[in-house]
């Protein structure tokens, strides 16, 4: 397969995934969406292996590295500013604080992953050993577990303060009907 043919095939796969995912959204079928995306990834992997020419070289990797670094800096700065703005406006709408907290977790997670990947690649360049993959996978798995536990934890609830029920975070249940006596 030539690079030009691969480009057309790539567009075809993108269209296919878009159709499947949009239909999955219409049908409210999460499994279909996952299958569509997985199939898209599989197809792309297969097609890449069929290409005879060079798809990317050192110049592309260098530009990609610079683009990733710049994107990381832009995203970090932008999200940091949004977090501060949302925290500043938390009295306007309590939901702002929740969004700010979620964004803070995401930002911290991103910076942590960046640090881990950087130190791993740095180590790999020196030692040439790939054993760090396991350590990195364990750490990232632990992080994902922590975040998912935090998200699914029932911390968001109604608190009784000065004789009135005060919403803490975003509780799923409605305000308690029982008397608040504190």
């Amino acid at each position, binding site marked *: 397969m030539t690079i030009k043919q691969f480009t057309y095939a790539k567009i075809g796969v993108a269209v296919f995934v878009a159709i499947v995912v949009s239909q999955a959204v219409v049908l409210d079928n999460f499994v279909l969406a996952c299958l569509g995306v997985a199939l898209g990834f599989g197809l792309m992997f297969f097609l890449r292996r069929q290409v005879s*020419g*060079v*798809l*990317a*070289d*050192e*110049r*592309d990797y260098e530009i990609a590295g610079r683009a990733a670094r710049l994107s990381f800096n832009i995203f970090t700065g932008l999200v940091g500013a949004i977090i501060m703005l949302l925290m500043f406006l938390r009295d306007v709408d309590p939901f702002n604080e929740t969004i700010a907290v979620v964004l803070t977790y995401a930002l911290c997670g991103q910076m942590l992953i960046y640090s881990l990947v950087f130190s791993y690649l740095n180590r790999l360049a020196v030692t040439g050993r790939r054993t760090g993959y396991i350590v990195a996978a364990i750490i990232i798995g632990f992080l994902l577990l922590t975040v998912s536990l935090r998200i699914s934890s029932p911390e968001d609830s109604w608190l009784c303060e000065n004789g009135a029920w005060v919403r803490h975070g975003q509780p799923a249940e409605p305000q308690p009907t029982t008397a608040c006596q504190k």
Partner: protein
Amino acid sequence: MHNEIKERRVRLGLTQEELADLVGVRRETIVYLEQGKYNPSLKLAHDIAVALKISIDKLFQFE
């Protein structure tokens, strides 16, 4: 950095595509190299020098 890639390639009767295939890069990279808009890695510089049957110091000159 000045280089003699284009002159050498033409002298050997190679197209940009053929040189790109020989050294394992995309044709665009050869274009940028010839225009002096990209500084190659030492490995790529070596591969190009080998493909063009010339030494690196003759192929690339620092100004």
